[in-house]
């Protein structure tokens, strides 16, 4: 399994052609207390960079962009009752959705963990 990061502060963990997507711990810290997550519907086809999910905090609503193209396979239903999981465990149980990749070569445009850390420090 390999984990990649986008400049929009999403992470994606890929196993075979299935990617699990969430927002990074840095992103949840910036957004603050999350009160609602709008999840994508399974079966919807999406293109890299599409806004497919929305994370609502007390302060504002923020779009979540898919870092890869493909078809939505699943969404994290636990967030319907516990959206605060995105705050407490953003990079594990606070995942948002799974996507079946249509073009794995897109992963090359993403950062690895070291590069993402350097990117965040540069902000």
């Amino acid at each position: 399994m390999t984990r990649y990061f986008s400049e929009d502060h999403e992470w994606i963990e890929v196993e075979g052609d299935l990617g699990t997507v969430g927002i990074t711990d840095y992103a949840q810290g910036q957004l603050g207390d999350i009160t609602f997550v709008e999840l994508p519907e399974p079966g919807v086809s999406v293109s890299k960079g599409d806004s497919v999910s929305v994370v609502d905090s007390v302060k504002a609503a923020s779009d979540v962009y898919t870092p890869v193209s493909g078809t939505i396979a699943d969404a994290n239903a636990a967030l319907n009752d516990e959206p605060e999981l995105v705050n407490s465990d953003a990079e594990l149980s606070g995942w948002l959705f799974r996507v079946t990749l249509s073009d794995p070569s897109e992963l090359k445009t993403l950062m690895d963990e070291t590069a993402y850390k350097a990117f965040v420090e540069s902000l």
Partner: protein
Amino acid sequence: MSEYPIHDNDEAEELAPLPLPLDAWHRENGGRMVPFAGYLMPVQYDGPGGGIMAEHLWTRDNAGLFDVSHMGQLEISGPDVEAALEALLPGDISALKPGRLRYSLLLNEDGGILDDLMVTNRGGEFYLVVNGASKWDDIGHLREHLPDEITMSHLDEHALLALQGPKAAAALGKMGLEPAMPGMPGLEELKFMQAASYLWEGRPLGVSRSGYTGEDGFEISVRGEDAAAVAGALCALEEVRPIGLGARDSLRLEAGLPLYGHDLSEETDPVSAGLAFAISKRRRAEGGFPGAERILGLLADGAPKARAGFALEGRMAAREGAKVFSGGEEVGVVTSGGFSPTLQHPIAMAYVDAPHATDGTPLEIEMRGKRLPAKVVPMPFVPHRYYR
């Protein structure tokens, strides 16, 4: 303190947000600084007890200290100053006794709201607190319309703090404030919408029992050089934590209090805005304030729109700009909305066509292509707990 006019619109000032007297103090206390109304302000504090939700709930249960030094503090005095102010505001300023304050509105000629403000009779002068984002326009408007013999000072080197919450009085009581002059009330005698001057360790403080959260509390005008000492002494008390602008907004929304630039604007009149209480009885009878003809007509006939409160089902919040529907008909627009930390569901304020503004009316608010079921509810959403 400096005498107006001295504000120059140089570009650097327009572009770069300015630090306020408590800038370093906020940073030492974990404040996350963001540009707001031309200044750098703490939106929330990092660390234990920080974050908008925790800060909000802390204020409802304990006492929160807010820095609102971006707001404009003005002193206005001179011959017939009451009449001069009444030419611009719809309040009964002549009847405002020393040591009392009231909410008022700066109106344009059409009765549109240029700003909302608090006006205090300080004895020899009137003290106004106006919104940060509109203060330069307000100062220009006041200077243009007030007679030349009226003096206006902008207290631009003063900070303004707000201590809010059910434990605010206990906390401020521990500070040992002394009335600045004989005959002024002790802090414990001060009731909602009353004000007095105090000394704290020799430092002058202008204190009013007022605020923007719906809770009991105080607003404290303090010289910039004394602000960090006052803030530090207050936050050293176990009841008090610093609270950022984020929670200030969610608290005032729950309290049903409008925010200028969002829920109020030059296009809004006081009657639609639900602020008819700011038009005093004598002024209704006599008129003589800007837009009186239109506003008195709206008072008599009813306004076509009304600012109404909404409770939403589910957890998705309606935000400013969202449209309100009754079936297929668009009947209004949201001006403020968010998740209520106290109630644990989303709430909103919207201007809707008057027939749809009755409590209990079921409507829908459109967010991101979805229709969210919503119901008109009375404001405040969370009951006020003022000390009367």
